[in-house]
């Protein structure tokens, strides 16, 4: 009897706590805030205002060419997870620019039902032919709208 009383009191406490904790354990793949690309945003060097541009962007080692329409303010550029540096060439009809960045890749499981999550941290510029650059966010994350600002 004593054991039954102990068990019934205990189970009531357990069930209450489990109900409270269980309610907060709902996730889906789209709530993963990590991103596998960095965001480069364009600015006018003189006015420091956002600048609309049209570029053809090539990443060294990448199979694809990233095209930007003439009124783009920013571009998301993928990084090679098997490397720690990346070179990007920005080609327009009038000017060519380049920027080299370094980073650290990280892999994790956000949720067992989702694809493994890839993100980059420690983002920094090594070289750039833009007039000026500024690192705004060193981690690739959905909550950041900009990783690198380039001024030209």
């Amino acid at each position, binding site marked *: 009897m004593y*054991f039954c009383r102990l068990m019934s009191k205990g189970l009531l406490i357990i069930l209450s706590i489990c109900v409270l904790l269980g309610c907060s354990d709902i996730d889906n793949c789209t709530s993963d805030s990590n991103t596998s690309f960095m965001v480069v945003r364009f600015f006018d060097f003189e006015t420091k205002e956002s600048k609309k541009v049209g570029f053809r962007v090539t990443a060294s080692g990448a199979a694809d060419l990233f095209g930007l329409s003439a009124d783009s303010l920013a571009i998301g550029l993928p990084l090679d*997870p098997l490397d720690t540096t990346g070179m990007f060439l920005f080609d327009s009809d009038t000017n060519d620019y380049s920027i080299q960045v370094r980073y650290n890749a990280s892999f994790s499981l956000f949720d*067992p039902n989702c694809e493994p999550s890839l993100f980059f941290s420690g983002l920094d510029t090594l070289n750039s032919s833009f007039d000026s650059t500024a690192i705004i966010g060193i981690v690739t994350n959905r909550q950041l709208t900009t990783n690198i600002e380039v001024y030209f």
Partner: protein
Amino acid sequence: MASFSQTEIPKVKRPKLGFHEAKFGVNLLRSGRTLLGSGKDMHEGELALAFNSWNYVFDFGTEKNERSGTYSYENSGTYFRAGVDRNFVQNPAKGNVLALGLRYARASFDDQLSYTLDNGFGAQDIDLSNTDLKARWMELNFTLRGKIVSQLYTGFTLRWKFSRKVSGEGLLKTFDIPGFGNTKRENATSFDYYLMWRIPLKKTE
């Protein structure tokens, strides 16, 4: 002279028992999950030494998790917990336990992830592993044990795990920690159910 009658409430004295019993047993839920499959292989044993109203508890376990989908993730290792419980039952000599306790836990493990990724650089085979991972955490435990028959006892432990720290990670951030759970949240909870055998160390009745 006025006289006052005073009713004294007798103070309940807990008997001084010293080291009066040892219990050892297995975690039925963990072994049960292994038998039922689901990519988990986990076992855990517990040893508890009772000293007056205090129980000194040591757990040791092994755990292997295999997860797959568009990827393959494996994680395996061992862990232990050590700590003390305050038993609140009126007569601990009977072996029943209603206790709150604290544990310090450590795990040694490794993990690996394999999958094919296309992040704009063509199909890339990703094979990552961590071979010497360590983790430590603390636990606040609520424990209940009761007698079934003879010296056979059963009961559960509810754990709230906090203050987690993992070291030894490379490019791959670990998902599972043996004995702790997954790393989606900083803290974790778990419910463990034990079957235990009691060995009286003193004649107390």
